[in-house]
Structure formats: structure tokens, C-alpha cells
């Protein structure tokens, strides 16, 4: 690589052939990005289980918190809203109503806050290894999904045990597509927020407020149809909220055994796949920027 002299005695610039060499760290096409992501599926699962066990291992009760945490929050919400504020007026089987709302909302809420900080918490993995960065927000959702499964079991037991008996119909099976739709929605949300949160670190502060507002706006412990009956525009806006759709779909099929309106299903599907595409593409476009902090 030292200065080479040609026969005329002039120094010439050394030439190297770039045959077989590829720019490093570049965003690949969507097709190969998805292929690379599929190749790392084991990594995504391992990463999400690692996050799960590292958070539970610090506690004395360990995995017990997966059941205890939602249980206690249901108790707290029931005490405030069902007992003191009496927001249960007009809602039959209020405990079941509340349990479904709290558990299903927690799944999305945790995916939202986790997704916002996904790039920051995965900084050491990003610096150390080259993998499609979308693995990080996806592993956040997978981790929360793994958390969610035991709480669904708790939920089923609670609903079955606590007095007002449910109407058990074939519609119970409809819970599964609702959970799938919500998980897809969460993946899109986590991907979208991961890039935004990386660009604007202040968002983590903001997210807890947004999450709370969303919780109240989704009708977790009161029925927005009853409360906002005389504000049709606000009601329409609230009903546009995907979480409201997912919660109502679950309650209708699990608790009340009635058919849900079609527009709700359409809205749930549109939100899930729409946000998945938008969020994933948005995240993928920023692929090269996540290494810089």
C-alpha cells in the first residue's frame, strides 16, 4: 500500500478491485430484510425469553408476578371504579368486563412502552452483532405475548369462578382471532414507536401519559357508549380507537355470547394490518440509523 512509482517516476494511485465486496451495514431490500428476519426467528424468541427471565429473576416471587400483577390491578380498579365511583351502572357482569379490559389492555400498553425503548435497551446487542433491527421491537411484543398467556389463563379462571355466570357459546373461540389481530397490531405499533422513540428520546416520558389516556379512552372500566351517549362526535372518535374494538369483540364473544357488529371486525382487521405495514415499513426505512445513539 506504500507509494508505488510507475516507470516515469510519478507516483500512481494504487487500485483495488471491489469485486465481491459489498457496502456494509446498508439497508437491504424489503424482500431480503424479511428473509433475514425469518432466519433470526430463534433469536427473537431467545431474546424475548431472556428479557422475560431477566425481569422476573430479580423478584422474590419470580414468575408469580405474571399472575399477581394483573390480579392486583383488577382488584384496585374494581375498588375504585366499581365500588367507590359506581361506574358499573348499566354494565352486567362488571368484574368480567373489568378483567378482560385490564388484561387485554395491558398487553398493548406494555408493547407500546417497551417498543418505544426497544432500540435503547438493545444498544449492546446492536453494537455487538449485525442482525435486522426489527428483531428488537418484535421481540418486545413476543415477550409481552408470553406474559399475556398466563394472564389469559387467570382471566378465564376468574371469569368462570366469580358469580354472575357467563353465557358460554361457540363464540368463545372467537377470542383467538381477536388475540391474533391484537398481536399483529402490537407488532406494528412497537415497530413504529421504536423508530420514533429512537429519534425523539423524550417520547419515553410522554408515552406513559399517552398510555394512561388511551386506557381511559378505550372503555376499560366503563362503557363509553353509555357515558358519551349525548356527544355523538366524541363517541364516533372513541369508537375509531382500535383498542375499543378489540375489547368489545372479546367481551361480546367471551362474556355475553352475542355477535359483534361487522364494522368492529372490519375496523380491528384494518387497524392490525394497516399499522403492521405502515409501522414495519417506517422502521425498516430507518434501519441504518439505529447504531448511532
Amino acid at each position, binding site marked *: 500500500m506504500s507509494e508505488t512509482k510507475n516507470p516515469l517516476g510519478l507516483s500512481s494511485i494504487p487500485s*483495488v478491485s471491489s469485486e465481491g465486496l459489498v457496502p456494509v451495514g446498508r439497508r437491504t431490500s424489503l424482500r431480503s430484510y424479511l428473509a433475514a428476519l425469518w432466519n433470526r426467528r430463534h433469536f427473537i424468541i431467545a431474546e424475548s425469553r431472556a428479557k422475560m427471565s431477566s425481569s422476573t429473576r430479580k423478584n422474590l416471587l419470580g414468575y408469580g408476578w405474571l399472575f399477581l400483577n394483573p390480579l392486583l390491578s383488577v382488584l384496585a380498579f374494581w375498588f375504585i371504579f366499581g365500588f367507590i365511583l359506581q361506574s358499573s351502572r348499566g354494565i352486567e357482569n362488571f368484574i368480567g368486563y373489568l378483567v378482560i379490559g385490564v388484561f387485554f389492555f395491558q398487553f398493548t400498553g406494555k408493547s407500546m412502552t417497551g417498543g418505544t425503548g426497544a432500540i435503547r435497551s438493545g444498544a449492546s446487542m446492536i453494537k455487538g452483532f449485525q442482525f435486522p433491527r426489527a428483531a428488537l421491537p418484535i421481540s418486545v411484543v413476543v415477550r409481552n405475548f408470553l406474559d399475556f398467556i398466563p394472564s389469559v389463563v387467570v382471566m378465564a379462571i376468574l371469569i368462570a369462578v366469580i358469580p354472575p355466570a357467563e353465557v358460554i357459546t361457540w363464540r368463545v373461540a372467537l377470542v383467538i382471532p381477536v388475540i391474533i389481530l391484537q398481536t399483529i397490531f402490537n407488532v406494528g405499533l412497537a415497530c413504529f414507536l421504536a423508530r420514533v422513540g429512537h429519534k425523539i428520546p423524550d417520547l419515553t416520558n410522554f408515552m406513559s401519559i399517552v398510555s394512561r389516556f388511551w386506557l381511559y379512552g378505550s372503555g376499560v372500566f366503563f362503557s363509553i357508549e353509555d357515558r358519551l351517549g349525548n356527544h355523538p362526535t366524541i363517541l364516533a372518535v372513541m369508537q375509531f380507537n382500535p383498542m375499543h374494538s378489540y375489547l368489545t369483540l372479546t367481551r361480546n364473544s367471551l362474556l355475553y355470547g352475542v355477535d359483534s357488529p361487522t364494522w368492529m371486525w372490519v375496523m380491528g382487521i384494518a387497524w392490525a394490518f394497516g399499522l403492521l405495514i405502515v409501522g414495519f415499513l417506517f422502521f425498516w426505512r430507518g434501519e441504518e440509523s439505529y447504531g448511532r445513539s
Partner: protein
Amino acid sequence: MADPELQEPNIIAENVQVRYTVNTNDPGNRAKGLRRIANAVSGRHGQTTVRALRGVNFVAREGEMVGIVGANGSGKSTFLRNVAGVEQPDRGRILVRFQPLLLGVSAALQPALSGSENVRLGCLAMGLSPEEATDAFDRVVELSALGAAIHRPMGTYSSGMGARLRFAIALAARPKILLIDEALSTGDATFAERSERAMDELLAEAGTVLLVNHAAKVIQELCTRAVWMHKGEILMNGPAEAVAEKYRWWAWNVAKGKEDIADKLLQDVVSNAVKEEINILEPELIRNPIPRHAARPVKETRKGARHMRQQREIEEVEETPAPMLAAAESQVWPKDFDAELPKAKFPSLPKPASQAVSAPRIHDEPPPLRLRPSRNRVVLRAANPDDRASSVAASDDFTGRRLASRARKIADERYEKRERIRQAESSSAAHEDSWR
């Protein structure tokens, strides 16, 4: 080793420039006016732009181990991060043959998890399949030599232990390009020995190692070539002995506070420094000399059979008889002239080579980077399974074994050579001691 110029390049960096905009506490750098108020609200003081790399040209070839020396803040780590693809340079580009693996100072991956869980997670992150990760596990544990500590949480490791495990994990995927940023300097003597052996093997298999280390002696011993970086530029590039020696002399003078000598040395090096330039030959241009923008398909308004398109259509221009022109009263352009002027017609050009039917399809995208060439070996096999030759080929892959044994031989040679040098040094040191 063969002439380094003849070896294939593994890393090419061309005019790499990186700048960071960072917050500063410098009172001389206060913003003025409105921005100052905004900074006061947000608790910031001001921002400056740091040029971390100012146009680095660099080539590393197969079987090379390049040491990078330089003072703190000279851009060594930034350069390695860019080569690894963690960050993208603001200007210039970096080309690599394989995906480089960066070993940084921050060792712990998931501090709450045990070492063995980190091994598995790291292996999967590098793209190994679960089976490969299980196979690699024993090798990793052996190379890291952590013993029972492998089952403890990684957060409880000392920095040296963490570095050992990180290094062992990185080598589990057998990468071809390894970038080591101070990661080995915390290891003890036995680990230094093991890691050197491991790197010898990597180099013998036509890999490349870039090593950042502050101990110039380590660079001298291990590297084939060294680069001295200073303030984001490469000052010197040459044999490891010479570069490391110069750097050591400069650093020693700086450390002793002999600024004038250090400045003079630096001045000397700077004046001798040649801004290295490289000329990258693009394989695409050789294959497809027509630039892509010219080969872009032109929107066709009318579609016809190919033999029909070759026909030139000549529009008949109506000729005006001369007497009529003469009769015209004035030669000015008539105001209400809206006859369509004949448009120029160009013959359709032959298709560019890139669009020819027989030409190989040009992929816009290169194949994805891997840590090492894929495992798919070419095994020659006879059509008849009873054939003796084929059974031999199937039972054992001789070519692979021969290549591996050759690589091991090269690694052993490097190791022995280094040992000889070390022994010579220690014996001469002992000799000096006995003289005193």
C-alpha cells in the same frame, strides 16, 4: 506470506468521514439569543460538531492483521464501528467481503442472564441455527476457560472475564473479519495465549483482523501491518514494527511532558505523511459499461411489433407553391397560425446490453453479507454409490481436511515465529540483567 498487494482485499474504506453533533459544556461556545433561552429550558449548554473521521482511505487484505494505534479520541473506535456497519459514515463508503464482527469494550450483553444463556443468545444473534449454537457451546466454554463461572449471571463477571466470554462467543460463528476494540487488553496471560492462537487460525483461513490496542508492543508482536491514526486521519501506514515504534516514541514523549520533542516528532510524521488515495475498480462497470440511468427503460407511448418499429415514418410536409408565397403581402408571421409544425423524429436506438434478453439479469442488490462463506462445499460424487471413489468422498471430505490442515500449519508457523521472537527478547533481557 505472499506479496500483500496480490491478496484479495477484505475491507475497503474510501474517504470515510464522520461527524457528530454533541452537547458541550464549553462556556466559550454558548449559543446566543433565542437559542440560548431554549438551551436554558432544556438544560443544555450548547452544541458543537466533532469531526471524528476526516477522510480515511484504507484497505485490508486477506490474511492481514492490522493494528491501529493512536491517542484517545483519534477516531479509532469510530472507524471500527463504521467498518462493522453499526453506523453509517456521513461521507465515503466502506466495502467488505464478509460481515465484520465488532468486539467492543462494553462486554456484557444481558447482564442479568448467566454466561451460558448469553452464549446462546449471542450465537443466535449472529445468525447461527439452534443446532449450530448447541454445537458451538462447548467450544465457546472451552475457549473462554471460565469453568463453573459460566453459569453465573454475566453482570457479576469481572471485565476481563466478560471480555473473554465475548471473544469466545464471537469466534463461535468463525467470522472472517474480526474487529477488536481494546477488548483483549483486560484478559490475563493464559487468555492472551488462547486468543492469539484463535486469531492465528482465523488469519490462516484468509481472514482479516483489525486490532486497536494501546500497548504498542502487542501491535508489534501480533500484527503484520499498523496504522497510526491522529485526529481522524491516518498519519502513517506501514510495517507494524516501524509504525508502532514511532508511535511509542511519540506517546512516551507526550507522557513525559516533553511537548516540544513530541510535537517535533509529530511534525516529522505529518510532513512525511502521504494522503493515501485508492482507486476502486468497479466490477459493475466492467460487466455493464452502460450506466444505469442510461439503461433505464424509456416510457413508450406506442407499442407495436418490433419489426414495425424499425420502420421510419416520415411525415409529409406540405409544400407551399412558390407563387403563393410571393403573393403574400407581408413576410411577418401570421397571428392566427395554428398549423402543427412537423416534429423531429429520432430513429429508435438498439437496446442497451443490460436489457438484452440473453444478458444475465443484473440484481440491483448484492447478496446478503455473511460472517463467513457458506458451508455448502462442493463434494464430488460418482453416480454409482458402489464406486469406491464416491464412498471415500462421502465418508471423508479430503479437500476440506487438507485445507484445514494447511490453515493449521500456517497458524502454527505464525505462533512458533512469535514464540521465538519472545524467547529471544526475554533471553536478551536476562542477559542484560546479568550484566548489571
